[in-house]
């Protein structure tokens, strides 16, 4: 007669033992309450900010279209704004939102940074963090698993029940698999509560969230499995449950509280960014070399002028079939945009170095890896920010060149920049349309973070099995 596998009964027993403790119910209540609070407040805030941003976007567009007849270069200085798209998923993991500028003012000749970051308007105590559902998962869920599970093997050894169990199970084993599965089943209500938040956001009618939300839930499941295996492994290595608890708390503290901050400090110490003054000074120097494209007699543009004249077979700019000043503006904008791109690439290189250092340290901290994944999926990571800045700059360039084109074709050289063009010509310029965030964009470059989770799971499983 085949002996039934002991895994399922063991798992059922373990899960039942967890819920026999009063502390488990207390923790579940607290966790649920905090999740609800964080989800509600965070969701409320994101919804309001989304509405606010939409209203501003509308207002700015309205202002653009209701411009009077103007000289196109006036409109180019009047400028417009690029808004970083906001997803409701940001309510789950706000990521770098509070620290990154979300709005860029776009105008001729210069690339303004992304401004209006919220962080500079907060109190310094806010640097201790802000509650979000993702934060609860990354930090608190792990600690819950530690507190409920640290005795899963160690307590059995301590109380002497371990031998009894082994004798009952027989030579086929299954103690490790059964108890670990039981621990995961035991804490699964917490995982369910955690997964409900991103899933609830789906009901608020933002399209295209479903795939990202499901991958988010998958990452969350992996993370819970990781901690269950880790807790089981440590519990089987340590002789007493108290020692297991101490080791696990050290792991949790190191990876969740200390390492992220230390990583940030070390990254900025190892790869310092130039400060804004330095950046602007260098930029000013480079831009000054280009010459002034407002001035059609600027010596820096003599060659350009001659070439333009030759191309059209005329000898005076007045004889060109278009306004030379508009043409010159286009050339100037092209040059200055190139300088901006070049200087900005240097900054991006440093930012990338810093991010890479943090990534390397994330091998030591599963919570950093999960955070990276969550931020990517919610569109609140550094890559999304860089994409926004790059796309806004590309839009700015085409926006300004469109206006320069209008100046070239609809104004006359002789009019000395006081001529106004029909306001309806401005209306045909479309608003900034950022690429919508998609799953494939979110996952590009995320392999390392998945690998961190995978590696920890593999190591913990190996260690736990060997000792148990």
């Amino acid at each position, binding site marked *: 007669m085949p002996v039934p596998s002991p895994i399922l009964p063991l798992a059922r027993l373990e899960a039942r033992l967890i819920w026999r403790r009063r502390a488990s119910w207390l923790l579940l209540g607290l966790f649920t309450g905090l999740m609800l609070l964080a989800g509600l407040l965070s969701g409320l805030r994101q919804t309001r900010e989304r509405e606010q941003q939409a209203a501003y976007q509308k207002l*700015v567009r309205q202002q653009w279209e209701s411009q009077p007849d103007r000289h196109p270069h006036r409109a180019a200085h009047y400028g417009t704004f690029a808004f970083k798209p906001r997803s409701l998923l940001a309510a789950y993991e706000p990521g770098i939102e509070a620290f990154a500028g979300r709005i860029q003012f776009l105008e001729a000749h210069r690339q303004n940074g992304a401004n209006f970051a919220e962080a500079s308007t907060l109190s310094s105590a806010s640097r201790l*963090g802000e509650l979000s559902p993702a934060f609860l998962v990354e930090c608190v869920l792990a600690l819950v698993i530690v507190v409920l599970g640290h005795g899963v093997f160690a307590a059995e050894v301590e109380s002497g029940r371990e031998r009894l169990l082994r004798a009952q199970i027989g030579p086929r084993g299954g103690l490790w698999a059964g108890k670990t599965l039981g621990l995961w089943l035991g804490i699964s209500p917490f995982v369910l509560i955690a997964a409900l938040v991103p899933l609830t956001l789906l009901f608020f009618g933002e399209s295209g969230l479903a795939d990202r939300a499901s991958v988010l839930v998958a990452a969350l499941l992996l993370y819970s499995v990781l901690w269950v295996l880790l807790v089981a492994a440590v519990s089987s290595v340590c002789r007493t449950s108290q020692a297991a608890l101490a080791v696990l708390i050290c792991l949790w503290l190191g990876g969740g509280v200390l390492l992220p901050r230390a990583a940030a400090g070390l990254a*900025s110490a190892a790869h310092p960014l130039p400060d804004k003054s*330095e950046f602007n000074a260098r930029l000013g120097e480079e831009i000054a070399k280009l010459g002034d494209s407002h001035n059609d007699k600027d010596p820096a543009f003599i060659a350009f002028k001659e070439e333009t004249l030759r191309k059209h077979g005329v000898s005076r700019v007045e004889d060109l079939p278009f306004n030379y000043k508009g043409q010159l503006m286009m050339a100037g904008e092209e040059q200055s945009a190139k300088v901006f791109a070049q200087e900005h690439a240097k900054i991006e290189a440093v930012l990338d170095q810093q991010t890479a250092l943090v990534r390397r340290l994330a091998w030591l901290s599963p919570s950093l890896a999960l955070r990276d994944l969550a931020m990517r999926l919610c569109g609140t990571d550094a890559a999304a920010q860089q994409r926004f800045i790059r796309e806004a700059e590309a839009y700015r360039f085409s926006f300004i060149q469109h206006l320069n084109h209008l100046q070239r074709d609809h104004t006359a050289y002789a009019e000395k920049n006081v001529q106004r063009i029909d306001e309806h010509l401005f209306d045909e310029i479309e608003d900034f349309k950022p690429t919508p965030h998609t799953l494939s964009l979110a996952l590009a470059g995320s392999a390392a973070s998945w690998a961190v989770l995978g590696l920890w799971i593999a190591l913990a499983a190996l260690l736990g099995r060997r000792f148990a």
Partner: protein
Amino acid sequence: MKALWHLDWLRLRRQAATWFLLGGLFLAGLTAIYLGKKFQEQQQAEISRLDAQFQAQCDRLEHRYRENGEHSGYWSYYSFYPVHQPPRPLAALSWGLRDVAPFVTWVRLLGLEQQLYESSLANPLLQSLGQFDLAFVLGVLAPLVLLLLGHDVLSRDRQLGVLPLLAAQGGGGLLRMLAARLLLRLLLVVIVCSLLFGIAMIILQLPPGFDTFAWLFIALLGLLPWLAITAIIAARSRSATGSLAAAMAAFVSLVLLMPALVNLALSTLFPVPEGLELTVRQRQIMHDGWDQPRQPNYDRFLAERPEYRKWPTVPEKDFTWRWYFAMHEVADRSVAELVNQHTQHLRQRHAWSQRLAWLSPPALTQSLLSGHSGTDLDAHLLHLETTRNFHEHLKAHFFPLIFDETHFTAGATKSFPRFQNSAPAPAAPLNPLPPLLLAALLLPFARPRPVLS
């Protein structure tokens, strides 16, 4: 008491955990001091380069107009002036907002409001991960070490069954024993903290004065509520595992959850309309000026600025710098009320965050320390105010020249105004009461369970 301490010390000394925790705290402190040094150097370097950068910009301007000079309007349109707020020496210990809120702002004579909200160049990912300064080590990690060293001072002996014996020998009962053991652990933590502070004083070259030691004093006072919390946990728990779980629960809820919850609640309940509103409005008024009759706008300017009545009119057709700058001023004035509201909102939220910091000892310590180091929101608002004042100074200097249609020639930049007033933000008044009160409120709950329970 002395015997109690001696015995306890002998035991504590032999435990690896003691040295692991204290050593870890010390190492974390050294890291924080190193990062603080970097932080300080970067900020000082940034400020020290400003003069040269300003000079280079002036040189470019001189070069540009070297032959025939140019109208003063052009010279002022193209010149930017750095305004900065130097750090207090203590800023290296508690960074507060100084790594996210700009402390250098370049302004020019145009409308000011659109120049104030530029973010500094930084990596938002690193900023979102949090700060590793000495205020974090002393305000968050030191309490953790105290908790971990002290949560089981009674429960371990209770578990081993030697508690009744010890209580009978020591005399004075459990409360006395609890107090003696916890004070010893507090002493160890205080020694490490003070040692770290001493090293910080040398490495960061902090002036040895009242201000500097007051910082350490606040940081150490911040440990007192934690002493009370540790005492409660140690007194009430039955087993060492239980007390460890309780200690972690206290740490997580007071250090991670409570401040984070307060922050989330504050930013949800006190939304501060962004500077964007100001920028959008000011931009509209400024540019509308180009499409409106010029004299009415100019009259609006004169009504606010009677000192410029000497130049009563502007031509309608031709461009004048007089009209141009007056229009920018009108645009700034038109949002003055909004600016006031904005600042009021920020102050209100800040005040609430200080009040609610009572709910969490580390938030309280952070708030007191950054206030004392001149790195909190008040300091940033002061920087904005300084910038506004300097902008006024620029206007007072240049407007009469521009309005007179003065032509600047080579060497003009030598007499350009420079930002002189570079005092750091003042320290917030020292108030040792909150942590003391918090500790006093909590301590009475630290009544040990009976010996045989």
